[in-house]
């Protein structure tokens, strides 16, 4: 294999991994605050169509990304109201969000099927982008790919080094204690849920404005759910999320590559590879119950109602 193939191979993996990384980064923060939002898939779809429609109507892909983030936040706030204020079961509310997201995105997208929208620009660094291999991989990428790395670094720094990050972790670990110490558990969780929604929305925009730049209802095809599995895989640690997302990017690439190669295994079964991979990864990572329980935010999925 020459350098050209290696470069395109690495580029494909990066491009397949980024939506997972974006969505999972948001969900990581949501879950660290003690909230389990299973609606990532729905929020991604809403973000995808909001981004696509805005980009198409305004002609600006960047505005599309902003609209996607806003739409993701808006829709995640429905979840926040239900689970935080109305104390609804988080699993059910997350599912409702996904079902609603599918329907709502399909409704909004009905007029956008089969048309093109502007795609996200690449940010090419002068000179540096001309270096073989490193140039295209590191210095000539879509802006959301840079963004995915930057936001991950920020999240890691936020969680480990800042007082606000400490408060977020504390709320996820023991919301009663956090409340007793005077922290506004619900406000913090609303914020964390909104951040997760915004990131899922951006992940959706990445799909509809770059990865497969046409609107279709099946755009997310389970990526939201894989992102959820990745958060479990990472044991709620940002850099493990990076590893997980790129592992899945690799699997996705492999399944596309094998289909292109026309090997003996039928194409639909090869397409199932990422889903198989998710199950296998979940099995491997969950096997150690003690470890999972140690890392998992202790309040994950539990409702909080303060007696005032």
């Amino acid at each position, binding site marked *: 294999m020459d350098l050209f193939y290696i470069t395109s191979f690495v580029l494909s993996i990066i491009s397949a991994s980024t939506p997972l990384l974006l969505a999972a980064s948001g969900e990581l923060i949501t879950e660290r605050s003690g909230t389990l939002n299973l609606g990532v898939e729905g929020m991604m779809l809403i973000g995808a169509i909001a981004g696509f429609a805005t980009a198409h109507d305004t002609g600006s892909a960047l505005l599309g990304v902003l609209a996607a983030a806003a739409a993701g936040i808006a829709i995640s706030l429905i979840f926040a109201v239900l689970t935080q204020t109305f*104390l609804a079961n988080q699993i059910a509310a997350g599912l409702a969000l996904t079902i*609603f997201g599918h329907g709502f995105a399909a409704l909004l997208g009905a007029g956008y099927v089969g048309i093109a929208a502007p795609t996200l620009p690449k940010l090419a660094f002068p000179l540096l982008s001309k270096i073989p291999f490193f140039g295209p991989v590191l210095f000539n990428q879509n802006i959301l790919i840079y963004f995915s790395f930057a936001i991950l670094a920020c999240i890691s720094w936020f969680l480990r080094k800042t007082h606000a990050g400490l408060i977020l972790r504390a709320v996820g670990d023991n919301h009663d204690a956090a409340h007793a110490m005077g922290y506004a558990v619900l406000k913090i969780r609303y914020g964390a849920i909104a951040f997760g929604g915004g990131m899922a929305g951006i992940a959706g925009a990445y799909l509809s404005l770059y990865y497969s730049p046409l609107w279709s209802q099946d755009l997310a095809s389970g990526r939201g759910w894989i992102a959820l599995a990745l958060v479990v895989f990472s044991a709620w640690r940002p850099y493990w999320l990076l590893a997980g997302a790129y592992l899945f990017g690799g699997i996705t690439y492999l399944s596309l590559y094998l289909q292109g190669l026309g090997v003996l295994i039928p194409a639909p079964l090869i397409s199932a590879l990422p889903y198989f991979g998710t199950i296998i990864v979940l099995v491997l990572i969950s*096997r150690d119950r003690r470890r999972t329980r140690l890392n998992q935010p202790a309040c994950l999925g539990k409702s909080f109602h303060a007696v005032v």
Partner: protein
Amino acid sequence: MFRLEPRGERSTFWTYGSPVLAVLLTILTMGAIFAVMGAPPVTAIETFLISPITSVAGLSALAVRAAPLIIIGVGLAFCYRANVWNIGGDGQFTLGAIAGGGLALLFPNEAFWWFYPVVLVTGILGGMAWAAIVAALKLRFNANEILTSLMLVYIAQLVLVWLVTGPWRDPHGFGFPQSAMFSAGATTPMIFSGTTIHLGCLLAPLLAIVLWQVMARSVLGFQLRVVGQAPRAARYAGFSNARLTWIALLVSGGLSGLAGIIEVTGPVGQLTTSITPGYGFTAVIVAFLGRLHPVGVIFAGLLLALSYLGGDAAQINLNLPNAITGIFQGVLLFYLLGADILILYRLKRVNPAAPVTENS
């Protein structure tokens, strides 16, 4: 300013009142959405919710749509009572269709009376097998059942695509991705001639009643409810969590499989790439809307079946996208989850201005 205050116990009124409130709020919201989309709200709601069931044909279509929702929904309600979150009903449905349908395709000329029951049982076993994977991964490896059951939906769908585009494709089907039609010996019998009402429409309420009795009267049902509400209390009482998880998943998987095989040997008539419009996911709403109670599931199944018919009617008569169905379902579940707070809490008006008064 309102504040939520715990009631201390369940409110019977709101246990039944909250779904009614949710349905009313959903209808109002749908009216608003129709208005935004430029359709006259009252006419649109009439088209969506009433016109589909004003004829015998419409009612029988409703029964046909409701049958799979109710059959999957009672299984899911059973499962969720045990706090096992199987959301892969669609996958188990598909596997039921593949297993039973495969048998029917294997013996295309079988005409014995017992062949159809065997096909049904094979479908049930197919759904159970798919759910058994979830149970085994959960109990052996502690893998989250929500995620595994969901991944298995995608895998089941892709397996079906492979089968009907590859080995099982009908050689006389002009290359369409579909199998041959099932033989008469492997077709769901009709109940009333002149309508589309088939055996499944009869089985659905029967199964709901059977599971209701199991839930309410049997020790097994009691154990499931305890393990779902208070897993530590179940351990204290000595109820085996593993056994109950297996039962919950096998029952719900088997019922989803049954719904799948009835659907393909009935209304669909063959295996195609699109045998389910998301029945497995809609059944999640059915289970919740029905209060995880089998009898409630019957009503909820009928309502959500209506939303499918309504979506089609809105598309044909008002030129609205049939995605309206998904929105209706999502909004309904939102309102239901929100309204459910009234079961355990009451709204209390508080005056934020003066929480602390002078010496009273």
